[in-house]
């Protein structure tokens, strides 16, 4: 997700091509081509520019709606609904052929990764492993981070492991029961004894009322993540 205001212009984008199965878009205002995954201008008058980053989460609709009951949802375009991907699109895409491959870390091209590009480095976490572990405490570069699986067992968010007023990272523990509501406690931390929900906010304890800083996750196939993040490290346990 990217901002569209850059260099004093408000850009309007259109699908314009593909670069090793990651698409390119072109803006109407300058004719510049932009890479979808990175938001970087790859050809044209604004080449080398970077679109402003906008934080987003990939969530299950039920989880999102519980958090944001007054939110709005993009509606289908009736004439094209029949052309939309089927409900099991992720399963079908998992079988699709890739045009590039990186045989590293025992990963296959279509393995789903949760990629974090932050703090000057790139790090990828195998999605299935994160789902199994439910709570991952790790570092991205020198920065301690948490990856937390939501109560739906599929949505994942990442946060900086820094609680306001606490020196250094805290130890977090997953609470055993799945939350009954979006605001319910999911984690507890050892430093303050606070309970935290999936939005990264403390709802009880000393830290109540504070929130962890979210970190952008990109859910992506290994081949695509690795292609655009050649120096990525991979979480292995």
């Amino acid at each position, binding site marked *: *997700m*990217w*901002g*569209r205001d850059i260099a004093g212009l*408000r*850009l309007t*984008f*259109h*699908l*314009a*091509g*593909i*670069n*090793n*199965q990651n698409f*390119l*878009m072109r803006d109407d205002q300058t*004719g510049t*081509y932009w890479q*979808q995954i990175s938001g970087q201008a*790859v*050809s*044209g008058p604004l080449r080398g520019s970077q*679109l402003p980053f*906008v*934080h*987003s*989460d*990939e*969530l*299950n*609709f*039920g*989880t*999102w*709606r519980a*958090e*944001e*009951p*007054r*939110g*709005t*949802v*993009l*509606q*289908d*375009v009736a*004439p*094209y609904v029949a*052309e*939309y*991907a*089927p*409900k099991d*699109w*992720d399963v079908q895409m998992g079988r699709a052929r890739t*045009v*590039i491959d990186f045989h590293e870390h025992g990963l296959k091209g279509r393995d789903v990764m949760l990629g974090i590009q932050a703090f000057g480095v790139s790090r990828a976490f195998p999605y299935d492993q994160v789902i199994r572990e439910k709570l991952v405490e790790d570092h991205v570069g020198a920065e301690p981070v948490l990856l937390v699986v939501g109560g*739906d067992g*599929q949505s994942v968010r990442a946060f900086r492991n820094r609680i306001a007023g606490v020196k250094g990272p805290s130890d977090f523990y997953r609470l055993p029961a799945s939350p009954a509501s979006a605001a319910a406690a999911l984690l507890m931390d050892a430093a303050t004894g606070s309970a935290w929900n999936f939005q990264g906010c403390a709802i009880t304890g000393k830290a109540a009322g504070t929130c962890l800083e979210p970190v952008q996750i990109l859910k992506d196939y290994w081949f695509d993540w690795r292609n655009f993040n050649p120096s990525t490290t991979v979480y292995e346990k």
Partner: protein
Amino acid sequence: MTREAQHNRRIAVATLLVCLVLALLCVWYPLYVIRPFRAQGARELAAALVVMRFREAVTLLCCVAALAALVFYWRAQPRKWRRACATAGVAFVCVLAALARVNIYELMFHPDDRPAFGAAANIKLDPAEKVIAIKIGGAARAYPIRNISYHHVINDVLDKVAIVATY
């Protein structure tokens, strides 16, 4: 046939051929390089994107030059079948110029140029459907992946912030 007419004919044929080859390259090369199930090398992709940036102007010039060449050719070439061939060549250049203006990617995946939004409470969507969610200020919005993975690009404004949702 006078020497001058012969000279004009040769120049016209050469111009027409150059226009034809140039227009053909402008359409064919990006299509060849930027195919979905083909690996793109960095250099060839950069070249294809440069071609795509300038091909509308280049093919328009080709069209104008080819038409001018055709006029000269008709004056210098009395044989009807050769005139017909030259005319067909120019028509092909014009067709290529039209094709250079077609965004084939948006023919395959139609754009959603006027995105519409509904209240989360009223949208009928399976709770397990994946969405891309954003929150800016107090405004929250979700883009169902089955929808956005078809249209690929949604130009939007949320809480006065212009954004592009992509998948």
